[in-house]
């Protein structure tokens, strides 16, 4: 017999075969699909998040856990009808115009995704129009922007102004991050939040949605 705790444990340990086995067992035993996701797979990732924050897990190990979780979700997904499928929220994420740095953005994506958010990563060097298009298309609750250069941080300001004139500002919460960003800067351009690292970015998103 498998338990939800077994599923969570396999996610934490990054065991691909085990997670599939446990998830399948739970499905066969008639457990509710959403229960398996929320209280097994995502619960496992929550524990991973705690370990990561404490410095007990390395990023590649976290990534492995995220992959394992995703494989578990794949098994359960066919059993959920669309109306039931619920993510914590949709986030559009990208690096702003003129900026090619993406390691931080990718980490933020990984942590958000594995906490149950649906992340649309639109990539690097993204002009304001592309962020606006993505808001229209994906209807996110959160718009997240990354910048690592003191010259490109202003593109965040430009993007906020652009989506405001396009009438999209009220539809999303805007969060920003990257080495040059400070809370003060975030406030000065009218962003709704700033987080200094990927783990706190997730906390921030949870607060905002």
């Amino acid at each position: 017999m498998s338990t939800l705790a077994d599923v969570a444990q396999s996610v934490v340990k990054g065991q691909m075969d085990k997670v599939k086995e446990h998830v399948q067992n739970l499905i066969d035993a008639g457990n509710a699909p959403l229960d398996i996701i929320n209280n097994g797979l995502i619960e496992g990732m929550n524990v991973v998040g705690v370990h990561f924050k404490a410095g007990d897990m390395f990023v590649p190990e976290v990534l492995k856990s995220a992959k394992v979780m995703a494989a578990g979700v794949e098994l359960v997904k066919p059993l959920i009808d669309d109306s039931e499928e619920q993510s914590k929220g949709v986030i559009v994420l990208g690096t702003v115009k003129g900026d090619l740095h993406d390691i931080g953005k990718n980490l933020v994506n990984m942590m958000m995704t594995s906490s149950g958010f649906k992340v649309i990563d639109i990539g690097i060097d993204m002009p304001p129009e592309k962020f606006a298009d993505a808001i229209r298309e994906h209807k996110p609750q959160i718009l997240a922007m990354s910048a690592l250069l003191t010259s490109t941080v202003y593109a965040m300001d430009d993007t906020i102004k652009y989506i405001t004139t396009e009438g999209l500002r009220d539809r999303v919460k805007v969060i920003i991050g990257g080495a040059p960003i400070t809370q003060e800067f975030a406030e000065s351009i009218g962003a709704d939040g700033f987080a200094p690292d990927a783990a706190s970015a997730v906390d921030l998103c949870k607060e905002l949605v």
Partner: protein
Amino acid sequence: METKFKVEVLSKEDCVRIHEASLKILKETGVIFHGEQALEIFRKHGAEVDGKVVKFSQKIVEESIRKCPSKFKLTARDKQRSVTVGEGLLIHPPGGEIFVSDLDNGRRKGTLKDFANLQKLFQACDDIDIAGYQPISPEDVDTDFRGLYCTYESIKHTNKPMLSPMQLDNTQQMRESLELMEISFGGKGFFKDNYCTWQAVCPNSPLTYSDYACDGIIEYAKWNQPVLIVPAPMAGITSPAQIMGTIILQNAELLAGIVLAQLVNPGIPVIASASTTFANLKLATWECACPETALLVVAITQMNRDFYHLPARVQTGITSSKLVNYQAGYETMQSLLLSALAGAQLTSQSVGSMENLISVSYEKLIIDTEIVSRIRRILQGIDTSEEAFSIDLIQELGHKADYLWHDSTLELCRAGWQPTMADWNSYDNWHRDGSVDIMVTANKKVKEILANAPDKIIDEQLEKDLTSYIKMVEKNR
């Protein structure tokens, strides 16, 4: 003076294996170049171009390396201060830092005044050979003109050789900065015959040159200015977690950049640099301070200097520390000493940089010049001449401990290295003198240098020429 002893982590065969592996990657996997102009140049010279991927033959790579001089003169406005890059150890300022700190005001965003102050320090510190660059980003200047104003302030406060600022966001800004600098050297055409500056070009690892990086190579090579190529992969993130794999990947990136530079301007000096780091995989961050990073820069220095005979620059003497403290000290010394002993000829970020290149400290900058000075002394090695053996003296004095009174000691007593920052006093004397911390000593030194630095070291006419050029640029934008 070249050191007589050397640190090596690679054997001769290892170097050959790295070269061959890099050639294999260049030939089979190739390198992406996003710049249309760069692709056109490659096509014109018969390289295999497939979309944006350029594949290189052994021939074109090795011919290009052969065209690169192993040293060149970098001309300063004050000719006495010109240096030979590729000979001995040269120190240049940090670049790209986002925050600045000092003991009085703490950590904060930088201004143009900070930028100017830092140039004054570079000008005053004998252990810093080259000035300019961009030790801090001036937040009070419009981003469009930041590079230009940085260039102006550098000219205004130093006459050492001068690097171009980092944030020249496009070819137009590169051109403007170069034109302004050329004015300071006496006007148009000076750069055609003199190497005076360069800009840092970073490939976007793995194996990719952005549009912007291509522009950096092409524009500077066209101006007949040296090209600096700085691969900066992070082992485990943008290159293999194996140190050796990372060396090969960054080497392939470097060689691809060299080919482009030599196709644009055959014989142009290329400075080969390593900003390669072993990532901290706990956080997936670029980590300058791990011992593995120190090993990486030693290996890459061996490749660049000993194997390819290129001027070898390294990003070294860096720290992750948030404070100027014990950690900052040993992390700075760890890689700087090792790279110097490996024969690095030019170092970047070794004076003042903190937090993995995120901030620059006025005080650390001054303290670091003492580290440089110590290392320079170590590089001189020891005098092994007959006279230095002192056999006569040893026999003359026999078992008497009278060396302190002897003329031979008197003669040499000032020859030993002495600190300018470290405190070598006894506890009692240190306590009597106010128990001063090194940060306070450094802070005092900073203030003294800034108080004595002239408002500008250029004459009225040059200042007028420079400011009218800037006004012209601002008006036309």
